[in-house]
């Protein structure tokens, strides 16, 4: 419908920036406010914005439902797997200092990996919730 034109063009303009900003929040979480949770919510917000403006089918082309639903356990697996790697390499569960040759650096890496797990779980869960509610409403 041509009436939605302004909305669609505007949304098209902002979508890449939302994703970029989510990644910025994710990886800048070490230095400023932010982290996996907030970044996950923002990334899920992008998918929701697509669904609102372009319809559900477009959103599912961007983030297919199967992928989204697999992301939910995948994030927890990444988080727990980071812990198990520490366990396998002879330290305690969730002790990241074995991930690199330098303990400090390794812990930084561990934090990044863990935040990645949180990001995957949170964005997957939020998007899957949105899908589930909307599909149910039909």
């Amino acid at each position: 419908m041509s009436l939605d034109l302004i909305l669609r063009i505007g949304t098209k303009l902002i979508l890449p920036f939302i994703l970029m900003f989510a990644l910025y929040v994710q990886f800048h979480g070490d230095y400023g406010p932010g982290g996996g949770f907030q970044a996950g919510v923002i990334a899920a917000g992008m998918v929701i914005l697509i669904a609102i403006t372009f319809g559900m089918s477009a959103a599912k082309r961007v983030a297919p439902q199967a992928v989204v639903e697999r992301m939910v356990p995948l994030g927890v697996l990444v988080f727990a797997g980071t812990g198990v790697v520490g366990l396998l390499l002879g330290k305690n569960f969730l002790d990241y200092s074995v991930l690199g040759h330098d303990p400090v650096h390794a812990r930084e890496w561990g934090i990044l990996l863990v935040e990645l797990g949180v990001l995957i779980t949170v964005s997957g869960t939020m998007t899957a919730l949105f899908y589930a509610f909307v599909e149910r409403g039909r």
Partner: protein
Amino acid sequence: MPLAIDVLSWVLIVLGSFFTVVGGIGLVRMPDIYTRMHAASVTDTLGGGLLIFGMMLQAGFSLVTLKLLFILGLFFFFAPVVTHALAQAALHEDIEPELAEDRRGRAEAMD
């Protein structure tokens, strides 16, 4: 910081504050949804824009300025988009805009 830039930024910030409050008053006082939208856009663009310009001058040339620029861009591009969507949805719900003729008619009826 040179005094001129300082003074300029204070002037911008005070002007921005003024327009922000004006927009808020308009939001409460205006008679119907379309005019209220008009008032709210004063807060969004003029008030927010001037405030952010003032703060940009205060911040100097740094990452903060870039972020403020992003926020400014967000205001400038998306306040109109949201207002447009809002007006469209309100029209869709058959809320009639109150026209000047209506008001004139009412005033004549009161006379």
